[in-house]
């Protein structure tokens, strides 16, 4: 069994109005030195296989085909064995 974590973020070139709004909130909170706030998504999942490489390949495929839309987003992922 493996556990994968996927982070999906908007590409740098894409304006992130949600991140901008949160940044304003952070400034209102008094943290004026904070900038470049970007919102992303975090997805985790278990994969039932004994082969590490296969779990990694599946995670990548799922991320490319469904979790991220590569027109506007990029992703990074990790896959680690689950300790029984």
């Amino acid at each position, binding site marked *: 069994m493996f556990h994968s974590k996927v982070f999906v973020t908007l590409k740098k070139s*894409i*304006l992130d*109005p*949600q991140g901008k*709004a949160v940044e304003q909130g952070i400034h209102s909170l008094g943290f004026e030195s904070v900038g470049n706030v970007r919102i992303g*998504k975090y997805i985790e999942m278990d994969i039932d296989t004994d082969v590490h490489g296969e779990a990694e390949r599946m995670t990548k495929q799922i991320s490319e085909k*469904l*979790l991220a*839309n590569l*027109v*506007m987003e990029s992703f990074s992922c990790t896959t680690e064995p689950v300790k029984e």
Partner: protein
Amino acid sequence: MAKLKIGIVVFPGSNCDHDAHYVAETIMEQDARLIWHKEASIGDADIVILPGGFSYGDYLRCGAIARFSPVMRDVVRFAGSGGLVIGICNGFQVLTEAGLLPGVLLRNKSLLFICKYLHLRVENAATKFTSECSPGDVLEIPIAHGEGNYFTDPETLKRIEDNQQVVFRYCDRRGNLTDEANPNGSLKSIAGIMNETGNVLGMMPHPERASDPVLKHTDGRKIFESIIQSFVYQ
């Protein structure tokens, strides 16, 4: 002429499916049928409508999960063989996710869900969806969305502009493109585009909400009338 068979795909969370059905059946007097997304085939539909709504609760991204619904495989096949497909609002989002139309629909620049009547300029009237319009015509049709901010990379933008795939742009009542008239921050005020072969249209505004005279706005009918005409001259 025999009535056209208009198939309207119903995803879990679609909520403009019955409006589209009503307009197709009652206003345009064609044969309309709702197609549940689990069906493997669109049957003998002449036209497929992907309606507005919040398919799969807009989870992950708008349209991202709907595009894997069983019926979508047949919709992609149908589109590939030249069949007419129109995606309205959430349907437009599904079409971009399915790769049938280029680009994506991002969160509105204002972050607000916007529901109001606005004006659209017909950029290309030589399409199967706009033949009843003239170039530059201004249509009054409502929008209702939170993610309608059209975006694509510069190369794709150039390609769709050069091919005249931009069918509608947001404009003011006189047809001028202004920042104020662009409700969601869409690139080049784009409100609707079609594919390269001209048989798949995606648009954020809701023509089915501007078709019944009872609602005082009927500009949306021009789109449905154009589609019907395209079969007359086939």
